[in-house]
């Protein structure tokens, strides 16, 4: 049930974590999953993929049926705990916030944990003891041993490519629940771009919203948000943007055509998942990076790198 470990060479494994893909990496953003798995192998990060888990609710179940949200996330945490790892790794901002929020609620309130565990056990899910910490891939490789390994793996380099980091919201705010870095002056993506031999491009909207959560219900409002980071990154001379969130990726990449229709501006800005950007520098295979799945072509950026 809990298998598909993708460990590196024997003796080279630095860390073993439970891996929660979330919806998008399982479905429309498969390129995120394949590049994450391939990158992890290069870094000696052993992933234990969780197969029997569900969607985290993406903030929507938290809003529609919050009690169900809490239980779904408790179930995910319980299966992560069952792998024996102390860390549940995510590759999506929204999964990160939803899981961390539920985890804090359970870890800091015995009474609530007891009630949720009674319900989990009733339907055949093992009780959760509260031992797991939820961490985004970004946090595992932006400092310490992960960062050292990243620097070694990124041997091909990005040759001074100008990359605009786009953090998105739910990996920064609320910092009380996330807390990895200063939400107004984050540094982790910049550190990774530098380690890969790229040049980070600075612009104010890198910490703002891409509009994704309301892109269906309030498209006009969402596009008004989406245009800011893309326009600013382009004005700052970025060759590409990188994001740790597949939802940001989807709106930045797939909805660029809608921005063009609405404003007449053609940005043609390549958008990369975090694992893809490092993957390019680390020489991952095209079959692992899967750039063909992007809506906006990544070719101009790859040509610059002569890949």
């Amino acid at each position: 049930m809990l298998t598909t470990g993708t460990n590196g060479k024997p003796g080279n494994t630095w860390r073993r974590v439970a891996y929660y893909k979330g919806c998008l990496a399982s479905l429309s953003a498969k390129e995120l999953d394949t590049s994450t798995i391939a990158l992890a192998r290069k870094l000696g990060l052993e992933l234990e993929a969780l197969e029997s888990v569900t969607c985290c609710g993406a903030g929507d179940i938290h809003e529609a049926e919050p009690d169900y949200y809490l239980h779904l996330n408790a179930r995910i945490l319980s299966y992560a705990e069952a792998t024996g790892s102390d860390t549940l790794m995510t590759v999506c901002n929204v999964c990160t916030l939803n899981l961390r929020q539920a985890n804090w609620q359970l870890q800091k309130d015995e009474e609530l944990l007891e009630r949720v565990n009674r319900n989990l056990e009733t339907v055949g899910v093992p009780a959760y003891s509260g031992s797991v910490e939820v961490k985004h891939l970004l946090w595992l490789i932006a400092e310490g041993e992960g960062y050292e390994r990243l620097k070694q793996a990124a041997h091909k380099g990005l040759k001074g490519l100008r990359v605009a980091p786009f953090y998105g919201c739910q990996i920064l705010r609320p910092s009380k629940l996330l807390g990895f870095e200063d939400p107004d002056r984050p540094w982790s993506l910049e550190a990774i771009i530098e380690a890969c031999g790229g040049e980070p491009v600075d612009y104010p909207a890198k910490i703002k919203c891409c509009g994704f959560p309301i892109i269906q219900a309030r498209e006009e409002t969402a596009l008004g948000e989406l245009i800011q980071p893309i326009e600013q990154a382009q004005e700052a001379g970025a060759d590409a943007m990188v994001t740790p969130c597949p939802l940001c990726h989807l709106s930045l990449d797939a909805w660029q055509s809608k921005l063009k229709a609405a404003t007449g501006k053609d940005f043609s800005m390549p958008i990369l998942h975090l694992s893809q950007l490092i993957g390019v520098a680390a020489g991952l295979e095209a079959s692992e990076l899967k750039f063909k799945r992007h809506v906006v072509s990544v070719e101009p950026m790859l040509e610059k790198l002569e890949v």
Partner: protein
Amino acid sequence: MSIGTEITGGSAPEPTMEVAIKIWRYDSQTGERALKLYEVEAPEWACLLDVLDIIKDRVDGTLAYRKSCRMMICGSCGMRMDGGAVLACKERMKPIVDRGHVPVISAMGNMPIVKDLVVDMDPFWSKIRAMKPWLQPGYQEPPEREYLASQEQMNPIHKEALCIMCGCCVSECNSMESDPDFLGPAALAKGFRFVGDPRDGADIERLNEYNSEHGIWDCTRCYFCNERCPKGVDPRDAIAKLGAESVRQGIDHDLGAKHAKWFVTSTKTTGWLRETELVPKTQGIVSAIKQTKFALGLARRGKVPLPFPPHVAEEVREARALHDLLKEQNRRGAAGIVQGERGLARIERTDEGGAKRDIAEITPGEEPAAAGS
């Protein structure tokens, strides 16, 4: 003589520090704007508001800002420091001086600037008024005895009742930047304060009104409001509580509510989001067909996974069984969010809010907020 000893009148000289800040000065009548540096001596205990007072007293009497209580209760002194909204009376300056940092002070965002650090809060108040922020008990004649509300009944709206209406949550609201008519975090948090009040009898009417075009489902979940609120109101959470109450009461005509409900349906049936069906389930079939060209473009890139056969998580029956079980336990609506607040209130802040290393400073607030634009 140092300013510190003057203010306290004490005999022993108080330790002082040299404070440097930059302030975006702005005159809405002439349109002139300038970023000016001020360097003053201040007592080590000074907050940002104290420093502004010293500048106004000693350096430039024309500096405009609002203040009143000086103790985080009146909500007058909201302004931006390095692009983030703060209460000037809450921000201690010593840690900033010790870092050698020169902060940039500017007016709050999402409201027109009147002068320097003073914004026009009329749009803010009109949104608060639109929430009908008074009790509507639902009876004409007062009862014989006063209505007693227990502490337990009032606890679910405790956080929202802490709001001092300073506007900090509105300042960086990303939805409001894009849609200035969005009711916004402060007003919606006020709305939940009444929807959740056991003495109020108008919750259905309120929820219907708050479900308007610029209401609950216009929130983009950027969480700037939770980050900025100096009182721990967590307005985004209050908006989620209004959403949860709307769904509980069957007020789910908004596309946002339909979107949220589809996640519940798809998770309990397949475990994962049924992405391809999300658009028709949210926007309806007609609108979805209008989106066909856009959708086909995505499909060519594998962004529209085929709904059949559905991608079903192993042991999805557990997720379904949980859903059935919870139906019987009556924690629907806002109660499902409120129950988690006890744990969240126990989180100790470990971060100092400081950057871990020096990088090019980003200061989204260096430009005065686009006044009236």
